[in-house]
């Protein structure tokens, strides 16, 4: 391996973590040497965070061994981990905004005291200044944290780890909210940490960063270890393939697509801070998949088209006619429906019955003089319970008693009652079992067969690949790729989603 002679700071062996009956990660090996930057790679949900939270004492492991400096350890809290020399710079900075930089460094630590028992602020500030000098960062240690930029807060997190003599520091997507210049400074600091013999774990989705600063890479997929090697053994293509490259299990085979005229066209759509200059169209009977990483702005586009999020500029046309969608009700009147990403928090009214949930988006058509026609409501609900075979369901039963997959079918029923022409499905199969999944796939296929225009937003590449007629890829609020069914591969999509555009690059500048 070439790095074998280096001191091993930390060794994780056969780590398994189960949450109830769900195995999040299984038999993962991971080690960190002194003075290296070790990239931990994988798709969302591959188990990177779970593994690092175990190392940082946030979760306890179900089985496996963790050794720090050759000694077996069992952390019961992050405090234990910090005491053993593990530091973490979290993705969401977690400081006390009202306290000063110095006070934040000393939170959870013994503070130096004066003879009469008060805190020795002078000494604390001196220590703080020393750490920032070591990092070559110019920061007023007496200022309140709330006045500082995200980049400087990150520096405080690094200093927090250093002041505790951390031997290993974990960086979780540290550049996600930094500017280019701040990123450069961070890389310089990481370089210095490396020279000082600190082991750095670096989690990021940005491939170019990985190849710039990392020495070794470990790839996880679906909670399993896939590969570990020095950086020179990887190319970008190979890395993406390892990350996403599960054999494309044929989840579902679509019927023959009969694609007609354009139903929905979007031109130059932008929403401040969410996405910019997005253009695409969906035709009759077409399923357009939308891939990308979480946070790439896919749900936001769906919600903007549904009148939930504001649109700053751009044109939306339905059947060639320009429309302005002001609210969900407005969108549904124009035959657009949206299946939200979060079933429980956005899709269902849990205290209500199954029937009430199914009819909720269509109250207008079930109402006469303000009064709901309960007979009609029952008829419609019964019909959808039957067509979508929602198991264990009756109209009056509380929706909270159904399983996840059947709850999802209730939400699908709810939007189907509106008899839509355009369906925006945001992660329609998230968190549901294989059986319910294939039923949803069958439904999507049938709807496309009926000539509906469907936008399928999904983080599962196999799902996007097997269901879509065309695939759009987003990266940081922009469309970075568009592929036909025939030319799309996991690798091409993965590259476009990481911002290393491939295929039919759409110029967004």
């Amino acid at each position, binding site marked *: 391996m070439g790095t074998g002679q280096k001191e091993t700071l930390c060794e994780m062996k056969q780590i398994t973590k189960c949450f109830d009956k769900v195995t999040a990660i299984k038999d993962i090996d991971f080690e960190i040497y002194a003075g290296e930057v070790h990239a931990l790679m994988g798709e969302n949900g591959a188990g990177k965070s779970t593994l690092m939270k175990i190392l940082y004492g946030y979760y306890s492991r179900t089985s496996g061994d963790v050794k720090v400096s050759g000694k077996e350890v069992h952390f019961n809290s992050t405090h234990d981990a910090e005491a053993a020399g593990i530091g973490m710079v979290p993705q969401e900075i977690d400081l006390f905004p009202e306290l000063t930089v110095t006070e934040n460094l000393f939170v959870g630590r013994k503070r130096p005291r004066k003879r009469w028992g008060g805190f020795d602020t002078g000494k604390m500030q001196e220590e703080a200044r020393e750490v920032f000098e070591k990092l070559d960062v110019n920061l007023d240690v007496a200022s309140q944290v709330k006045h500082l930029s995200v980049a400087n807060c990150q520096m405080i997190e690094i200093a927090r780890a250093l002041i505790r003599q951390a031997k290993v520091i974990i960086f979780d997507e540290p550049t996600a909210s930094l500017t280019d210049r701040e990123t450069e400074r961070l890389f310089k600091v990481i370089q210095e940490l490396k020279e000082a013999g600190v082991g750095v774990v670096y989690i990021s989705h940005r491939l170019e960063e990985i190849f710039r600063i990392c020495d070794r890479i470990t790839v996880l997929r679906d909670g399993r270890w896939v590969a570990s090697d020095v950086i020179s053994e990887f190319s970008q293509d190979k890395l993406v393939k390892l990350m996403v490259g599960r054999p494309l299990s044929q989840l579902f085979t679509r019927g023959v697509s009969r694609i007609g005229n354009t139903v929905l066209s979007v031109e130059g759509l932008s929403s401040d801070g969410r996405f910019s200059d997005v253009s695409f169209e969906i035709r009759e009977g077409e399923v357009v998949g939308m891939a990308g990483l979480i946070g790439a702005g896919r749900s936001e586009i769906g919600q903007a088209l549904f009148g*939930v999020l504001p649109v700053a500029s751009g044109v939306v046309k339905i059947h060639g006619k320009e429309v302005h969608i002001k609210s969900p009700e407005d*969108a549904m009147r124009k035959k657009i429906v949206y299946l939200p990403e979060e079933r429980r928090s*956005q*899709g269902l009214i849990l205290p*209500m019955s199954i029937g009430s949930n199914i009819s909720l988006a269509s109250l207008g058509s079930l109402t006469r003089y*303000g*009064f709901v026609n309960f007979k009609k409501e029952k008829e419609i609900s019964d019909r959808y319970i039957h067509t979508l075979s929602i198991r264990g369901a009756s109209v009056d039963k509380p929706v*909270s008693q159904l399983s996840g997959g059947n709850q999802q079918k209730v939400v699908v029923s709810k939007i189907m009652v509106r008899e839509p022409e355009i369906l925006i499905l945001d992660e329609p199969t998230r968190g549901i079992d294989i059986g319910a999944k294939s039923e949803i796939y069958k439904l999507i296929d049938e709807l496309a067969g009926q000539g509906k225009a469907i936008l399928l937003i999904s983080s599962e590449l196999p799902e996007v690949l097997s269901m879509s007629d065309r695939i759009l890829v987003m990266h940081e609020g922009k469309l970075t790729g568009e592929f036909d069914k025939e030319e799309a591969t996991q690798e091409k999509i993965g590259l476009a989603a990481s911002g290393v555009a491939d295929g039919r690059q759409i110029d967004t500048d």
Partner: protein
Amino acid sequence: MKNLSRGITGRIGKFGTLLVLLLIIVILSIAEPNFLSLKNFTNIMRQVSVTGIISFGMTMVIITGGIDLSPGSTLAFAGMVIAIFASAGNNIAAALSGIGIALLCGVINGGVIAVTGIPPFIMTLGMQLMARGAANIVTGGFPITNLNDTFRQIGGGSVGIIPIPIIIYAVLAVLSHLILAKTAFGKSVYAIGGNKEAAHLCGINVKLITFLVYAYMGIMTGIAAIILTSRVNAGNASVGVNYEFDAIIATVIGGTSLAGGIGTIFGCIIGALVVGCIDSGLTMLGVSAFYQQIFKGALIIVSVILDTYRSKAVKIRK
């Protein structure tokens, strides 16, 4: 085993309040034999009608996940204006202005809450102070007495043996029940309280419904003000103190969840009767008004604790 305990919590939730009411009636009847008489029952109902009507509005407000702390003061403010017109002999103007004033307070509450999204607790606490101030401004704090005889019939008269306030109470109960249980508006109220975001994504106009719920609360308060002003034959700026708490107690005891999304008008009636029986029983037993206050304070805490357990049971089912 789990299913069994779930079933029991569910059943207690539905019939528990009714059981509590029967238990209270039995205990008070044993302690004070005069308690269980038709005369006392009509008396209790007559007293319950004012806060009971307010609690119909309160039930809707709480089902949306909100709260209204202003009806007691709004009632006093509306009562003053009602008394001015009623003492001048114009009963129709009295009734309309009373409802109008209370509706205005509700519209302001609902409008500010819906548009700005500030917590209903804060908005209606502010309104509580403002309406009380306004009530005092009307006459500089002096009560208005000697309203006309026809007007006094509203609170004091009867049709046959049934006092008019009880008839009004019953009519509003049916109306509120129909609105809540049978209309699209009612469904939207439950949906907003159950999950605001999901309701919005279903095309429900969350702001409009929220606004209308507080407006309805205002109308109920205005009608309650007419009854109360008529019954005491005066407009008095200091009436109605803590009435909102009676209404909240009645609502929560009646099974409406402070977390929103759950509740019925039927439960709210039972809850109001529980409060009325306890009030009347303690008075008949000679318990002083000060101790009654302590008792009621404890009651509101206990009823909310019960609600918390009920919500937990619901969550477990989720």
